[in-house]
């Protein structure tokens, strides 16, 4: 059971080949205006271009930045480094781990999910960067590895789109898009923070974040509220089968047996995190925010499917936001 006020810290693993733009994304996060204290563990500290003026403190291997982020090089066993980070900076909101170019990022997330980190860390998403201009070279350089990286991605970032034309991008998509793939196309690795960090709610920011407007202009969202108890298996099916226009879902719910969960869906990764009791200020038993990144995600259909997961025995007031 999770203790109130100590929700697990979400962890994002950034994977992808050397040169796909992982370090650019890391710099984007470290210098970004997302209002979060993000701890970034990087492979090569020297490659990160932190402006020395932004460094407010250095503590051991940990550099604190003026926007609240911290950064450190991956210089010991991942398990030990995460332990050290959790001990020295319990206040951080989100952990980002940059995988090496030759790593299968799934293996890194596997470590995050070891039992020792249960209730302390939560696997949020594996984000895999792909160099739209150099992917064929990556496949040729290490057959199997590039496919493994794509296969383990919860979200794919097709980066350096400015270097190739639309036909090439569409051809790439046609070949590498799986039925459940969510792809974000970027130039210079500018992934919207809504996609990277929107799961950042649980007990930390609570309901206030639900009201916040998406910072990225492309994002659209819908909110589902209901007071009836939920059939978890039904909900799991609906969420696992969401159209790929939906990139994230987050919220809270109460099962018919009284247990409460925080729900996180990022791309293809779904987790239900047990909670002791409902967060204050929700005003409803079940609440789910769906975030899409295409023009017209079929929100109405999804909300109707969610209604269908309410146990019929407990009719209750419902309403769509």
């Amino acid at each position: 059971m999770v203790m109130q006020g100590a929700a697990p810290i979400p962890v994002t693993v950034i994977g992808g080949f050397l040169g796909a733009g992982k370090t650019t994304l890391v710099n984007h996060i470290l210098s970004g205006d997302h209002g979060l204290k993000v701890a970034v563990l990087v492979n090569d500290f020297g490659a990160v271009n932190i402006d020395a003026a932004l460094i407010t403190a250095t503590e051991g291997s940990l550099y604190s930045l003026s926007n609240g982020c911290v950064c450190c090089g991956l210089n010991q066993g991942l398990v030990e480094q995460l332990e050290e980070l959790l001990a020295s900076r319990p206040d951080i909101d989100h952990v980002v781990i940059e995988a090496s170019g030759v790593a299968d990022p799934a293996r890194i997330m596997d470590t995050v999910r070891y039992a020792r980190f249960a209730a302390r860390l939560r696997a949020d998403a594996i984000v895999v960067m792909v160099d739209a201009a150099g992917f064929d070279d990556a496949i040729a350089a290490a057959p199997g590895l590039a496919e493994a990286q794509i296969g383990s991605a919860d979200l794919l970032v097709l980066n350096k789109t400015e270097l190739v034309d639309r036909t090439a991008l569409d051809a790439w998509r046609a070949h590498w898009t799986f039925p459940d793939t969510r792809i974000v196309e970027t130039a210079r690795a500018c992934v919207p923070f809504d996609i990277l960090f929107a799961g950042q709610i649980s007990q930390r920011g609570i309901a206030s974040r639900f009201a916040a407007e998406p910072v990225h202009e492309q994002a659209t969202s819908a909110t589902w509220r209901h007071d009836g108890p939920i059939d978890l298996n039904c909900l799991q099916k609906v969420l696992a089968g969401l159209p790929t226009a939906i990139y994230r879902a987050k919220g809270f719910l109460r099962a018919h047996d009284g247990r409460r969960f925080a729900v996180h869906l990022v791309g293809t990764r779904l987790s239900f995190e047990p909670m002791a009791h409902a967060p204050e200020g929700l005003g409803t038993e079940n609440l789910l925010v769906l975030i899409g990144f295409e023009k017209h995600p079929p929100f109405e259909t999804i909300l109707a499917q969610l209604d269908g997961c309410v146990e019929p025995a407990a009719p209750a007031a419902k309403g769509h936001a």
Partner: protein
Amino acid sequence: MRVLYDHRPSHSGHSAYADLVLINGSIYTGDPGLPWCRALAVARGRIVARGDRSDVEHLIGAQTKVTDLGGRFAMPGLYDMHTHPDLALAPRYADDLDIGIVDPTPDQVRDAILAYAAKHPNREWIYGQYFVRYTFRQAGLVPGKDWLDQVMPDRPVALLDRMWGTMMVNSEALRRAGITATTPDPANGYLERSPASGEPTGLLIDGAYALIHAAMPPTPVPVLRAAYRDGVRYQSARGVVSTKYVHVCENRLNALQSLDHAGELTLRVEAAISWQDDIFPVRRRWELLAGERHYYRSARLNANAVKFHFDGTVEPRSSYLMTPWDGNSTWSGKLNLTPEHLADMIWDMDRQGIRVIAHCTGDAASDTFLDAVEGARRRPGGLCVRHQCAHSTILHGGNLKRFRDLGVTAEFSPVSWYPSKFVSGARSGYGAERLSRAYNIKGVLEAGGVAVIGTDWPVSPLDPWIALETMVTRANPWGESEDRFGEPIALPQAIDVMTKNGAWSMGIDHEAGTLEIGKSADIIVLDRNLFEIEPQGNIHATKVDLTFVQGQLVHDRLNDKSEAVWHGEAPQLW
């Protein structure tokens, strides 16, 4: 049974003649009293005369086998004091499912499982490799028990993924392993679970494999026997006369004993029982240590040793070091066992005459190990067994003389650290200061200690000649890297490390390791004189024409009509 036929009671009469005489050789004995000779005579497995032809002529009788070496170089046979042929070779004989497609689609995985099941109707488990996640995603499928149950509902199936990080099992496999929603995750892995119900999905990560392996039948003796047979045949063809198989269980000992009885254990084997279950389970560990090990004892085989992993390795930075891995962190690695555990265990093993072989890569690991041996030496009842510090990758300068003082063997793995692009990159993690004192064979020898080598196959190749060359050159044998790590030692010293020091570390230095009168006739005849060639690029390519163990010709490279057990070139194993 060879081992029983060969023995002769001490009062039985024997011939006045030699069984074997080698003449016309350029024989390096390893004995400072007489480093070189041209002829040797052997009776009942031991050297009975040496010198020139005139010194052995009177021992040649009608039954004596006389071998003219034609001027070739001969020397004592080699000692590989840490290796694991079973780990590399057993999977080749296990006949597990191998789909054999680079990127198998789910349909191809299904077809392969069904074909394997039909071909092996009596196999309890369907176990093998591999599936890839992305082809499942391509097909819009989720790997796990739901998919696998549709393929094979009634027989247990376990299939690894290509990266060996995930195992997919069906419901029957979960049932046999007793895995349910309430099964806790192991410390070093987890069960993938349905978010809603907590039910295992049939995907197991890392350390969770052990739950399935524990439910599967152990590797069968015939598979292990075939694996060891290939390893032994290779080692004999490369001139190894004594070895330590570091990590064994009851099945492995049964396999080795079966080879021994068949006359195919053509070198001495000291087998070290695993102290931990991290590589494979040892079901009879305590019975073996308490005395069951004696049932395996013969002139060629003993199991009077245990092996454990005391710290980790360089790549995940889990070696246990005196100072932090780098200046930016307090992390200096860690021990897998408490020093108290170690102290009591070494003392207890020492009292039973069991050698403790401790995997220690970091300088703090070997330091703690030496402390524990020192403690055991002060407690009553010890037998002063020559314990062994395995790998000894980084040693503290202050500990070099303790190997001599405490009678502990410093074992090194030169085959895994000769300079190459890969090794230079991986080892740079130690940092410049530590790298400058890594692999310090010379330091141990100069301090009067005993250093030996192990090939540590499959970590590095089983070929001991790579070790001999690189100890002398500290260079890449194929010229693929300019780097040189550490201090070279002279050829005679390197030969000592791989012959008489090995015998010392097995406790048989009084009867083996050099070519002296009264000692075991463990002799190898080579295609080149090691003292007359440029070491770099040449020593590792040495071919062994003949290998004698206890006077028995076990390997003959050139004459396939001879009575040797093995003939021809060493088999290609990797």
